[in-house]
């Protein structure tokens, strides 16, 4: 395999608060190759969105900071770049789309101006070139009547159309890496299917690497190549999408899958994960999942397990992962 587009090495992100330091992301490593979709999966508080913001160096400082680690985009460490150099990377080499397109779109600018700004800043296109390119981009993301839409404002568009406009803006400079943070959570299922299809098609067309951040394992199953499962700031398991769904080794992954499939456990009751995600101020000693884990042994409550490969490319953070074979 060629060198990865994105290589995240031991990334840690902390936030200072009056109650103490929050370790939002701890020692997170993963990489994404060209044309690959990696899903970062977890629930609220897992650190998945913080990790994404850290890749773009968008963590507000203070109170937050990247406390250690490196983020290599095509071999260049973004954590070491100056703010000025970083501006040449954001939007050009890596772009991000969000759950709520209204957060990313300026309500008082026309669609042409929003997308055009990216083209002007990064590619230095002229005014007439910009209009032609904006229309082309809108057509690419499946916006009907693009010439007309280019002159409209975000409030003239439906949620699905806004999402398409945001994707067009993200793709304006043909980035190597697209970060999609819950890109379809706010959309209806039939529109979600359209947008996921669009992202997939564009990834194939341009060979982009896609980092998909989601809590929805249905979307993961349909779009990702590889999966990183996070819990309480740490990676707990990684594997190909086939491996994760067919042979999950971490009890949290197993619980999540059971919940996502609405598996019935006893009678007609569903399989559930008891308890809740621990508060960042009351992290349990030992494994952070131990208090909710049915299989925990005394060791789990005293020591944090390290990530250990159960097979090549299959790190799992659980003392009992190796014994927990298929089925």
């Amino acid at each position, binding site marked *: 395999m060629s060198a990865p587009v994105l290589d995240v090495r031991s990334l840690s992100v902390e936030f200072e608060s009056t109650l103490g330091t929050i370790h939002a992301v701890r020692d997170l490593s993963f990489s994404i190759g060209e044309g690959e979709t990696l899903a970062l999966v977890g*629930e*609220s508080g897992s650190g998945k969105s913080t990790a994404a913001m850290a890749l773009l160096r968008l963590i507000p400082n203070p109170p937050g900071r990247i406390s250690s680690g490196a983020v290599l985009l095509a071999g260049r460490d973004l954590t070491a770049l100056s703010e000025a150099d970083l501006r040449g990377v954001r939007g050009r080499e890596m772009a991000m789309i969000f759950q709520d397109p209204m957060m990313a779109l300026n309500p008082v600018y026309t669609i042409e101006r929003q997308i055009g700004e990216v083209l002007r800043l990064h590619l230095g296109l002229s005014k007439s070139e910009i209009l032609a390119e904006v229309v082309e981009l809108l057509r690419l993301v499946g916006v*009907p009547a693009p010439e007309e839409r280019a002159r409209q404002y975000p409030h003239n568009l*439906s*949620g*699905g*159309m806004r999402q398409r406009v945001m994707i067009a803006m993200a793709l304006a400079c043909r980035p190597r890496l697209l970060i999609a943070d819950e890109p379809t959570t706010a959309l*209806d*299922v*039939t*529109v*979600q*299917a*359209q947008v996921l*299809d669009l992202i997939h098609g564009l990834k194939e067309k341009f060979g982009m690497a896609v980092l998909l951040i989601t*809590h*929805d*394992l*249905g*979307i*993961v*199953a*349909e779009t990702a190549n590889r999966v990183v499962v996070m819990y309480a700031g740490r990676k707990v398991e990684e594997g190909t*999408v*086939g491996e994760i*769904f067919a042979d999950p080794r971490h009890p949290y992954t197993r*619980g*999540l*899958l*059971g*919940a*996502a*499939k*609405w598996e*019935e456990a006893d009678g*007609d*009751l*569903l*399989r*559930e*994960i*008891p308890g*809740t*995600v621990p508060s960042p101020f009351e992290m349990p000693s030992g494994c952070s999942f131990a208090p909710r884990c049915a299989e925990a042994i005394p060791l789990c409550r005293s020591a944090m397990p390290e990530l250990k490969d159960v097979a090549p490319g299959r790190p799992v953070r659980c003392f009992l992962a190796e014994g927990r074979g298929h089925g």
Partner: protein
Amino acid sequence: MADGASRVASAGGAPILEVRELVKHYPIRGGLFSPSQMVHALDGVSLSVARGETLAVVGESGCGKSTLARCIIRLEQPTSGHILLKGADITVLAGRPLRELRRALQIVFQDPYASLNPRWSIASLIGDPMRLHGLAARGERRGRVASLLETVGLGPEFMDRYPHELSGGQRQRVAIARALAMQPEVIVCDEPVSALDVSIQAQVINLLKRLQRQFGIAYIFISHDLSLVKHISDRVAVMYLGQIVELAETRAARRRVLHPYSQALFSAAPVADPQAAAARKRIILAGDVPSPIEPPSGCRFHTRCPYRQDRCAREAPQLRAVEDRLVRCHFAGEPGFPPEVPA
């Protein structure tokens, strides 16, 4: 009406709640140069639910499912139509008789952050409705709150806490305890788990199921999550632009749906199984849901329907019995319609 279909239309036993031809139109005031218009949120919705039964109502935003929920509990006054609770028409009641009947009809909202007053302790949030309805004397109230909390899986220590101290799942349990305090016979659940984390959703669903078994409560379960609905409901109504387009027993709907919109909706729902996801073909509908201000002529789905014909734009189909269910489509029931989704 075919025998199976009439059973589907009217719930298993005697209905505890019945909605007949419910219509809700919202006027939008026009601007200086634009005439006033009507949002057709609900156009003739009829359904019923029996004791201990779960009826799911599914559809996308703008289909009217939340308006339906709000009309049923009379947060909104319907434009026309009737809502019968235990045979009594609650749309014509007001004042004290309405309050008394409505006790039996409770709602749990999607967002437990918005539905609980942040300045009230959990004990008052659950206890105050009991006071209003005279359900527990002052001296008994705390004891009753504690036992309700226990029923929903929370300890008595929660009584003196405030909503902000609770997680989303805990808040939703409080909202459920508050509904239970009224000893309801029907609870309208409006997306009760969609704001919760995946691992917490199953906990809350299991709680709702246990309560149903214990107290025989009927649920009208409003949801956009089809995989959830398939597991928890007895019957399912699919809505599109203010109308029911298909009403079937969930068991039958899991096998096959007959309306082209139901088919697209069910096929678009992501499935947490990569092999099944790769094997199946999704129907990707073109375009967005049309505006409920000017719903399309004829069949409201015709603008997005992959199988539309000329007739569909002219003639509005009725909800009619087809095989074991009700379907609003001219062609449902014809051999091979809708075509199987090509694999």
